[in-house]
């Protein structure tokens, strides 16, 4: 009996070997149809003494038809996800903190792709028939919830997600969009995310992710983006691409006394990888095709440094000791870069930005990569910003009604651009606004008012296109998508929408209901402006995926603040009050009702007549009954004769009884009081 089983095992083993050989052979035959993994890190100093670190991991798998369903690098969970729910595109982000659009920039590809609203944001485009999209979305949200240890499953309810038409992305049918602004992000969400990487955080760049240091930052956003062309109708099949990014803004620890310069400015803090993360990179992840670290310096930094340099040279020409490979010497790099990439100088910018590339292949555990940047000159610069700065706030007070206002203000950067274009008459600036409002905030869309430069404008003049789907109580949120055309030289623009605050059923309140209710971030995009960088690419054929991403054209996008609406809340701590009041009301109601129903007027009158004749109250009767019981005698009911003498005698006896009883009661009370006083 044992023999055949072992035979079967042997056979299976052989089969497996064969398959493996075949697979490796097939890979060998087609070198371009290979699974690919690459890891990159982009570092960028920010104007307000902070440092941006942007990890970018990309895994790509060729289409199943040519490659087969077995993978070496690509995570199985994600592959199954794509297969099961027929996902064409999906993006999931976990964010903690807010992206500071004013100081960290809002125009470059990193900020417009990676700045996300606080909490969880998920959108997905499905490749299924229209009527199955909702079902797919619900299943997807549950699956992701389990996968990332987060409450994404709350996006399942139809009040939590919406179906944007063109507000978030152009031409997106079958798209669903949902956010959870209150979701807390922590390391339990990061661990499953890291599990998708072939080297986890054991080797390569992800080794830098020391939990305390990356969660200490000012902004933390982990993102997962999935693109699958498998179900593309165009027939162009490139397989599945998984892009995982982690964007963090860290504050380098500054030494106690930073040297102040004569002009009052202070040096930017110097930092190194080990001081930022507390770790060093010990070589690349061996499975990665490319493993690079980039340092990006903004064009404005370079130009500022050049200016400073010229000033210094004018009175201090001896100092000509040049360092660094570039012509800029306001800073010093501890490791010399393997390559310097310059951005193509675009129209509005005075100086292109510079990328320093470091290849991780050259480093090992024994010779770890610890890159550092030391500033030599104090420099102040600002990041390129989106054409308009959008902010959203609540107006009004009280528990009844209020208004949402979105105000758009031109940024400093944009002013130059606008004055250049102001000669043209029909110059206009297109702004897309997408906003989802939960149903308990009942927005009246007819109250939409638009103010441009402090003047109220008619809605039709400014809004070119609008799609509104009003909220339905307990079913769906209100969605507003609109395209605004603003004049170029706009000084300020504002949109206001009035709303009523709704009441919720007692069991619909979330925990901590007294905090208020969130209105998720609105998405404001500028489709006429493309956030992309053009790099002077040298002929090297192996393009880095990160640089490709940076060069990809995408509209400038920004998110507004999450709003907190205080709603009226019942006093949850006193359910007993409610119960008591309800019971009292019921008792009163039924008592009087029964009383009325039961009463027969004629009967009552006769009874009253008899009673009056008796002239005997209920109380003396009761007392006499009690007295009889006390004396152990048979109680005889008083005669029902109507003679006055009888009744008077009985009443006198009853009064006698009551006085005796009273004495007894007083006696007992006295004894009790004495007891209480002496022994109590």
């Amino acid at each position, binding site marked *: 009996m044992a023999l055949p089983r072992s035979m079967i095992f042997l056979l299976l083993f052989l089969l497996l070997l064969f398959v493996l050989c075949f697979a490796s052979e097939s890979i060998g035959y087609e070198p371009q149809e290979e699974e690919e993994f690459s890891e990159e890190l982009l570092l960028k100093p920010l*104007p307000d003494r902070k440092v941006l670190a942007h990890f970018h991991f990309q895994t790509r798998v060729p289409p199943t038809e040519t490659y087969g369903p077995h993978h070496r690098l690509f995570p199985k969970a994600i592959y199954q996800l794509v297969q099961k729910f027929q996902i064409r595109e999906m993006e999931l982000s976990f964010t903690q*903190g807010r992206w500071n659009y004013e100081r960290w920039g809002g125009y470059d590809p990193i900020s417009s792709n990676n700045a996300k609203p606080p909490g969880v944001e998920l959108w997905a485009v499905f490749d299924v028939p229209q009527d199955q999209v909702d079902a797919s979305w619900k299943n997807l949200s549950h699956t992701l919830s389990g996968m990332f240890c987060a409450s994404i499953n709350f996006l399942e309810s139809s009040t939590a997600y919406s179906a944007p038409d063109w507000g978030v992305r152009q031409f997106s049918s079958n798209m669903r969009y949902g956010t959870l602004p209150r979701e807390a992000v922590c390391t339990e969400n990061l661990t499953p995310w890291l599990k998708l990487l072939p080297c986890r955080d054991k080797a390569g760049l992800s080794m830098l992710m020391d939990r305390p240091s990356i969660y200490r930052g000012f902004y933390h956003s982990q993102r997962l983006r999935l693109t699958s062309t498998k179900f593309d109708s165009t027939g162009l099949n490139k397989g599945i691409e998984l892009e995982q990014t982690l964007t963090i803004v860290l504050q380098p620890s500054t030494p106690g006394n930073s040297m102040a310069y004569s002009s009052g400015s*202070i040096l930017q803090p110097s930092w190194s990888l080990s001081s930022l993360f507390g770790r060093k990179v010990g070589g690349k992840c061996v499975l990665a095709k490319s493993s690079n670290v980039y340092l990006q310096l903004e064009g404005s930094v370079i130009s500022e440094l050049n200016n400073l340099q010229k000033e210094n040279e004018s009175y201090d020409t001896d100092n000509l000791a040049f360092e660094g490979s570039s012509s800029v010497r306001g800073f010093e790099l501890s490791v010399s870069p393997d390559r310097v990439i310059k951005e193509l100088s675009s129209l509005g910018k005075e100086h292109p930005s510079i990328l320093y590339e470091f290849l991780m292949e050259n480093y090992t555990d024994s010779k770890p990569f610890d890159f550092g940047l030391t500033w030599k000159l104090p420099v102040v610069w600002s990041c390129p910003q989106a054409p308009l700065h959008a902010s959203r706030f609540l107006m*009004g007070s009280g528990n009844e009604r209020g208004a949402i206002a979105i105000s758009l203000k031109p940024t400093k950067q944009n002013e130059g651009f606008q004055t250049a274009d102001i000669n043209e008459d029909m110059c206009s600036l297109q702004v897309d606004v997408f906003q989802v409002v939960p149903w308990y905030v009942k927005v009246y869309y007819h109250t939409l008012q638009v*103010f441009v430069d*402090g003047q109220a404008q008619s809605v039709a003049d400014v809004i070119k296109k609008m799609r509104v789907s009003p909220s339905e109580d307990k079913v769906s949120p209100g969605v507003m998508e609109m395209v605004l055309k603003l004049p170029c030289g706009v000084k300020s623009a504002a949109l206001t929408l009035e709303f009523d605050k709704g009441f919720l059923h007692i069991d619909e309140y979330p925990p901590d209901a*007294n905090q208020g209710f969130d209105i998720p971030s609105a998405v404001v995009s500028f489709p006429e402006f493309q956030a992309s960088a053009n790099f002077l690419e040298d002929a090297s054929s192996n393009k880095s995926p990160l640089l490709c991403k940076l060069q990809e054209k995408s509209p400038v996008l920004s998110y507004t603040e999450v709003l907190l609406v*205080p709603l009226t809340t019942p006093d949850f*701590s006193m359910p007993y009050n409610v119960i008591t009041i309800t019971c009292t009301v019921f008792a009163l109601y039924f008592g009087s009702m029964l009383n009325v129903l039961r009463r027969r007027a004629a009967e009552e009158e006769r009874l009253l007549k008899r009673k009056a004749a008796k002239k005997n109250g209920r109380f003396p009767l009761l007392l006499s009954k009690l007295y009889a019981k006390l004396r152990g005698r048979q109680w005889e009911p008083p005669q029902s004769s109507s003679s006055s003498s009888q009744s008077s005698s009985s009443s006198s006896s009853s009064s006698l009884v009551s006085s005796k009883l009273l004495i007894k009661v007083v006696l007992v009370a006295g004894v009790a009081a004495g007891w209480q006083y002496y022994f109590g």
Partner: protein
Amino acid sequence: MVESEPLKPKPRPIVRIGIFLISHSLLVSVVCCTAGVLALLLLPVLAKNTYISENALVPGSSHPMLTSQDVSEANKFVREINNLKPTGTSIGISGLIAQHMVDLGAEVCYHKFHPQLNKFHPLQFFSGPDSGIIQENCSCSSYGINTVGIIRAPRGDGKEAIVLVTPYNSVNVSPGEALSLGIASSVFSLLTRVTWLAKDIIWLAADSQHGEYASVAAWLRDYHTPLFGGLAKLNAEMCHESIMLYELKKSLVTGAEVSDVFRRAGTMAAALVIKVANGNEEVEKDTLSIYAEASNGQMPNLDLINVVNYLAVHGQGLRVKVEKFSSLLDSKWLRVLGETFESLGKVARSLNPQWKFGMPVADYIEGTATLASSLYHQALGVPTGPHGAFRDYQVDAITLEIAPIVSSNKGRQNEFLLRGGRLVEGVLRSVNNLLEKFHQSFFLYLLTSPSKFVSVGVYMIAFALLVAPLPLAAASLYSDANKVDSSSEKDTFTSSSASVNIPAITFKSWNWLHAAKAVFIVHIWSVIITLLPYFIGQIPNCTPTNSLLIWVLLSVFCLLALRMTLGSSFSIISVSQLQKKEWALLKSVTISAAFVSLCLMSVINFATAEIGALLIVPMCLMATPLRFELKARSLRSITRAACNLVLAFIGFPPNAYVISKGLFEGFGSVNVGDFWNWLDSLRAWNSATYLYVCMVHIPCWVLCVYILLHHC
């Protein structure tokens, strides 16, 4: 005998109790009123110790992080402010503050505002603060500039914010104001570094050259109900050009700049107004005074006061006090009362040691003085500081006024800044811990000391007892009047049958309508006199006394005119043979009206209703025609008449004001014109007390006087 009487069905017990009470209404009234006054006097004894109800606050759970380095920087900042020459313009100092905020790494903006004068708009009384009203003819010099700095919580989502307010007079900064700015700056510099922040922090340096309240209210108005278009904005912009003396500086450290764009953070969770007393009075210990009363007797959540009190006493060793009437402290009768309560408490304790009743005399007197002040300030309905502006937007706010020990020692100032800063830091940290807004603890309470309070459930009793006899008295008067009618009719029509009698009774029982009409007319008159001061206020160069006189004369004239036109039926009734009892019906309706309006007022502003009930209830209950009393010529009736006269004299609002002021502050400084000023300030602050005085108290008083002078 039994057979001869018509059989009456026995009413139900509850009705019987009612009838019993009504028939003994005199006794009930006396008992209830005495009990009501006693209960009010007992409140300090019944006060409970405060406790922190919201668990999330955990005050004092962490060590204060404010270091001496922060303090020394703040001290430098204070010195800079003090050294700034009083140039007479507000630009220099706000620029200095803005620069300091920017250097600390905050987002800074200026907020220019035009102080809105408080004006009573008769039709907009209960509507909220309206943004639409701005005076057109405002000169540019009257603009104030608030400086607002915001620290964004590094990992927060920016939905909530805590506000710190330091009012300062930009034209002439007093040393106290400089110190308060120093405290705020030390806390602010700490908060830019900490990692535990979950809510944004807003520091509002409010330019109080046009009043502390006005500047804070203007900022809050722009925060909550901004104007996107219209004249006012343009006006402000025009002026802005003319005072563009300050540069919008750019920080050399962070690249941040001061902007003119109004910056916001999320929904406000709480606000603290920090003030430092100028050290005029000698104190042996640093003292912290808490002011909490906002408009119309609204109070911030008790938890906020508790946290401040807890941290100040246990954390920083400050002495905490709330306002009290110091003149009550050495009053004889209070001492006697206190001694009585103390001895009662001793007796109770000897009976059962677990009965914790009674308190030391000194504590009782202190408690009563504080309670009286708390009651008065709530009743006044005028906010006691800039924190009042926040309450209009449902934000819990209090003013902390810290009085330092007067000394010229350098180190002393550092220590003071450290203490103040640590206190503010502790409070901010507690509020920062809050997940929800303040909702756990009481909103309706009276303070008897910083750590003792009387909750609504207890102080309601006093008011309920005072008010309870009113409906009883009204019912008893009404039934008496009817009974007398029917009995007198019985005498006249003994032979007549019931069929004739019934319509007569029904006709008589409608008599109260005439009384109701009289009361109604007086109340209409009260509406007119409520509106009169608005027009009198328009008369230029009018002394308060003259205004008051004009008001009184106009009121009397109005009353007479109304009586002529509408009230002609007064006299018709009085001619009839039932005139004897007419006053009883009138009194009954007056009392009912007073009862209804007192109950309504207790919902709007409890303290006003309480104090008003103390005045009105005895007056209404006692009122009987003087002629009637004098006819009787017994000792009892004469004392009653005297009582009536005294009560009516006290009940007249100016008299009540003058007497109470005289009692508390001495009669030397009393002026009748002050009453006008007092009333005018109530009007200006949109206090419901003004409405109460004009529309409830005065008509009641007039009706009582009318009853007193009734000819029967």
